[in-house]
């Protein structure tokens, strides 16, 4: 088995968006030329704000949305070439909102056991045993087997979602903001559980989040996404110690640690949301960038290699020359 469990090669996704009754449609590029490699057993975090294309990327990884161009490979096999059931066996999601991702009319045993039914594993008795084992694993009491999601707290529901994702022992788990709908004390429990399960089962996480503090806590490597493009990819330690891209810097400055001696930081970036429909001649972040140069308006930034990764910024290029 190769070291790379999940690979994206130049993946793009475009949508045709209607502009109104009498206008033609325009193209929105949600994900643009993303190439990534996720190693087996690591936590790869994808960070970005709303509209940056994180969730579109997650949908493509799960095989729910085909890329417009490019290739996604699991263990070297393109997703496009294998059928959905086979993909679902290796890659499973945990979604943000456990209130809407669990069918309210199914019991916990049915919800967690459904993947076993879909994949035709065992008989009813062995499935039930497997479900019980999963509940134990995620720390849910067995008496909840025949309960319904409506009777559970948010934290318990997220545990059900985790049990359901893991019951087929996938290799990769896509965690799409798994704790952002939860209270802080519950968030801590779920993060602890995710880390524990990863160690126990040797899982690989593709962790999507906008919460930099959470990412710092559990990621091994981090990619930062802005307007559909990866603008920086680094190791956790490197990124948090010395961010390369000005957008990453602004994100890190925006993390509010509970320190009463500090005020709210000024991130020096404009609030003008960049228009995903517009074609960018230069750097997509340039309209908000406090350090933009003239060249940023006209030329797309090249990839600058950093000791532990890379970033796309003209400034880094110039520093390298100087």
């Amino acid at each position: 088995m190769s070291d790379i469990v999940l690979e994206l090669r130049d993946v793009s996704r475009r949508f045709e968006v209607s502009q109104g009754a009498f206008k033609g449609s325009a193209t929105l590029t949600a994900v643009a030329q993303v190439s990534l490699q996720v190693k087996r057993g690591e936590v790869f975090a994808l960070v970005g704000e709303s509209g940056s294309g994180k969730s579109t990327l997650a949908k493509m990884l799960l095989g729910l949305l085909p890329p417009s161009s490019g290739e996604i490979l699991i263990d070297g096999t393109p997703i496009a070439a294998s059928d959905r059931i086979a993909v679902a066996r290796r890659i499973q999601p945990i979604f943000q909102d456990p209130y809407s991702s669990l069918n309210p009319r199914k019991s916990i045993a049915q919800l967690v056991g459904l993947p076993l039914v879909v994949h035709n594993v065992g008989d009813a008795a062995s499935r039930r045993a497997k479900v019980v084992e999963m509940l134990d694993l995620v720390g849910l009491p067995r008496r909840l087997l025949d309960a319904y999601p409506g009777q559970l707290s948010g934290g318990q529901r997220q545990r059900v979602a985790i049990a359901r994702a893991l019951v087929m022992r996938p290799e990769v788990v896509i965690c799409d903001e798994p704790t952002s709908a939860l209270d802080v004390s519950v968030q801590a429990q779920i993060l602890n559980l995710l880390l524990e399960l990863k160690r126990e089962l040797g899982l690989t996480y593709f962790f999507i989040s906008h919460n930099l503090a959470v990412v710092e806590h559990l990621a091994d490597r981090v990619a930062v996404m802005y307007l559909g493009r990866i603008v920086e990819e680094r190791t956790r330690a490197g990124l948090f110690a010395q961010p390369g891209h000005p957008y990453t810097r602004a994100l890190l400055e925006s993390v509010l640690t509970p320190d009463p001696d500090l005020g709210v930081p000024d991130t020096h970036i404009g609030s003008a949301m960049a228009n995903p429909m517009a074609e960018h001649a230069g750097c997509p972040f340039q309209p908000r960038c406090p350090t933009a140069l003239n060249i940023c308006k006209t030329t797309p930034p090249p990839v600058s290699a950093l000791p532990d990764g890379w970033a796309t910024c003209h400034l880094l290029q110039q520093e390298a020359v100087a």
Partner: protein
Amino acid sequence: MALLDVQDLVIDIPTAGGVLHAVSEVSFTVERGETLAIVGESGSGKSLTSLAIMDLLPRVAQRRATRLNFDGADLLTIPARQMRKLRGSRMAMIFQEPMTSLNPAYTIGNQLTEALRCHDDVGAEAARARAIELLERVGIAGAERRLLQYPHQLSGGLRQRVMIAMALMCKPDLIIADEPTTALDVTIQAQILRLLAELKKELNMAMILITHDLGVVARVADKVAVMYAGAVVERGSARAVFKAPSHPYTRGLLNCIPVPGRTAPGAPLGAIRGQVPNLIGRLAGCAFRNRCDFAAPECAGEMHFETPTPGHDVRCVRLAAQKAVA
């Protein structure tokens, strides 16, 4: 005299299974120019507390208090007509979801000027001028054009700025912001919080900030009230509460959040065991005692505030015992 003085606020909600004690004996004061943050998890009663001040509780909820004064007016006995006059003009509210609290069928300009024209006798032109002035003040470029736009034409950050401008239209003395930045991106959150702090200072307003985000609280608040299961368990200056958190729940919450540079990556985060108690039926003693490491038989008895340092109150009868262990 404090601008807002809340003493022993109680909110009971009758349900099929009995009375739900949503808020019990909550007391705090807010001065002009001061920011009080009410922090707590879902179900702690923080939003209901703010709705009770504005007299916007759902009809089934029963509100009681020994004192509920706003700038000398007794909000417990004030006639509904006068309360309507206060609400929106002298006390204003900013809600969490700008998409659901703005009317999608009216233009921004329409919604901005409505409150002012209801409360003050101003003409359409003057109201429009004030709307433009405030939109510019909250950092919206091209304000005149924006007045003609509808909410769906604005981004989340812009909508929240419109909500803030709307709350400021009548120059309120008190502004209640319920999770004003929770739905926003982190970089926008910082901008909105800075803006709120600036405007509060400039207009000498009092602000109540309701949030679950301890980072926001520490950076923005002058005073903090931590709520758990409908009661304030700790209150004091932001400095005192964050530097010397003294209620086991406050400490538990602070240990739950990962802090870059302080918590070791990958190490287990602190957790608060157990679950929030059911608030239906008779409650006695400390609601946190079944999750607390310091719980003792006396925690089931009468609760009162201890004052470890002046201006810092902790609703815990085991403060001495906590110190002995620590």
